[in-house]
């Protein structure tokens, strides 16, 4: 049986291993922090490449990773067939994000509501809950990569997809850790 979830995991694993090979060949002795960074970076890029270009969070991850050298190498390596299109998408994303951010700042500066005076309890409760929801939405936006530039609706969609991918990533990493420790303990 080949469940679709395991297809995702296998894709991710393959790409992750490919990315790690890049690092393996490059340096011989790395400190643990560097290794951890390498592992995590290749894992993230591999994860983003499984959803290459279709979701905002994956594009954001790739765009961010392409900014520094290590990431750029990895991106090119892992996404060589599609890298051109993705690079364009990523740069377009950066532009668009700036635009969105400017618009939001403008909007926020224009309309600031004040609902303080003598509101009934119901209205007060509603405004409190709205504030709570808003605050938490902001938190979520900071969590999901590329989330700050999305409206609520697409934010939730992205969160869904991101959550599924994260879960797959965690599973794969945990299993490979299990394997690795087996090997280490067996030695």
């Amino acid at each position, binding site marked *: 049986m080949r*469940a679709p979830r395991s297809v995702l995991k296998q894709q991710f694993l393959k790409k992750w291993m490919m990315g790690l090979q890049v690092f393996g060949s490059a340096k011989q002795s790395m400190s643990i922090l560097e290794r*951890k960074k390498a592992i995590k970076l290749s894992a993230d890029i591999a994860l983003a490449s499984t959803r290459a270009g279709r979701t905002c969070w994956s594009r954001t991850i790739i765009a961010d990773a392409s900014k520094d050298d290590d990431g750029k190498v990895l991106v090119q390596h892992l996404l060589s067939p599609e890298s051109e299109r993705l690079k364009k998408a990523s740069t377009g994303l950066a532009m668009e994000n700036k635009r969105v951010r400017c618009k939001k700042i403008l909007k926020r500066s224009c309309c600031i509501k004040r609902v303080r005076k003598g509101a009934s309890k119901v209205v007060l409760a509603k405004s409190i809950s709205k504030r709570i929801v808003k605050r938490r939405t902001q938190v979520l936006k900071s969590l999901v990569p590329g989330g700050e530039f999305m409206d609520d609706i697409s934010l939730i969609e992205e969160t869904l997809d991101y959550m599924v991918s994260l879960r797959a990533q965690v599973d794969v990493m945990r299993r490979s850790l299990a394997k690795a420790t087996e090997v280490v303990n067996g030695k």
Partner: protein
Amino acid sequence: MINRALLPAGGGENMLHCTDMTVLERQRARIKWQQEQQQQFQLQQQEISYFTELADVFHQAGVHEGGLSEVVTRSVKPDPGLVDNGWNNDHVVGYGVGLPYNNGLGFELNYGAISRTSSCPPEAVAAVAEATVKGSESVVSDMISSGAGRESSKKRKVDKIQNNSKVVAEEDTRDKRIKGCAEQGESKITEKNNNKNSRNNNTNKNNNSNKENSDETSKDNSKVSEVQKPDYIHVRARRGQATDSHSLAERVRREKISERMKYLQDLVPGCDKITGKAGMLDEIINYVQSLQRQVEFLSMKLAAANPRLDFNVDNLFAKEAFPACSINFPTIGMSSDMTNPAYLQFNPAQQQLVACCGLDMGIDPPDMALKRTTSAPVSIPETFLDSSCFTQTHPPPTWDADLQNLYNVAFDQGRQTSFQTQPFTGSIEASNLKMEM
């Protein structure tokens, strides 16, 4: 409030099965399927029979290729979770079919099989189809239209027939657009089409005829190749509600958001009981944060376990095998005796970590943090069990805020990317974070 359809916890698992397929394949298959489905529009009056079939499809779809026709016609005891809560026919959960195919051709065959042999009501089948074939940009866009279909039918059974046809029409419309969209790879258009579809849905809320839907559908069918259709939004107000455009748009938006939240509710473990947006958001935030932290933690441990970054090919082969034999790995499974191997695993890695990172990092490695808070040594490994399978019966270990802060500190200093600790101000839930895994 309004009775909304909710997947049982088991269904959440199934849903995950279909979230990982590549979009284009699913899409193509789905469109073909929708076409066939619309041609074979049948009304199914029996609840149980199509629940049975759906349960069949759910359980068996992942099993074998090309055998769906037999699967669907076989009668099996329906999933009890599906028949619960006095649902109407309308509220059949639509998604959760995991089809294990990689090629679009396989999909098409299967969908053909479904449409030929099943006599599920079109809404249910449409929902099933769309569940298995995701929209062009994201997992959710299809679910949303199924959700939209459900929403449309939530009023009365009388409208069921009309709603069914509506849903089919809408989804067909949407599919065509999504097909065009996918080839362009534009998520915005999908969103717009979602908007248009849910708004079309709203227009038809008050006893519109099927003919109108089919007119729309045929009109849209003729414009398959177009990517951007003029989005005139015809929304009709519901009975007894405000009618100005702002509130209508507001209502549409709210409904969309709540639909998506429902899907999130199915994904995030432990959210069946939470009904408000704020609480749901809280759980979602916790869950995403916990997943991200786990990634950090696992990558740190992997770095510790592999001094040379050589992951041999055995890993790959192991992964190939894991769908078939999922029992071999100690981290899989939720039984309590599994927690011990998982916990034992931490210890050898801990010593390595201590030896390696020691003081030059200047922070406590996460394992040390774990070691310190040994007040609940068994509960901690539980959180690192397979995050995809969890049990509701087992009471979740509750983190207190201290442990969470420890993790925050440890990971903040360890990572380079921006990972902000989010103080959950003023909410009691923050201190009772349930990390249900």
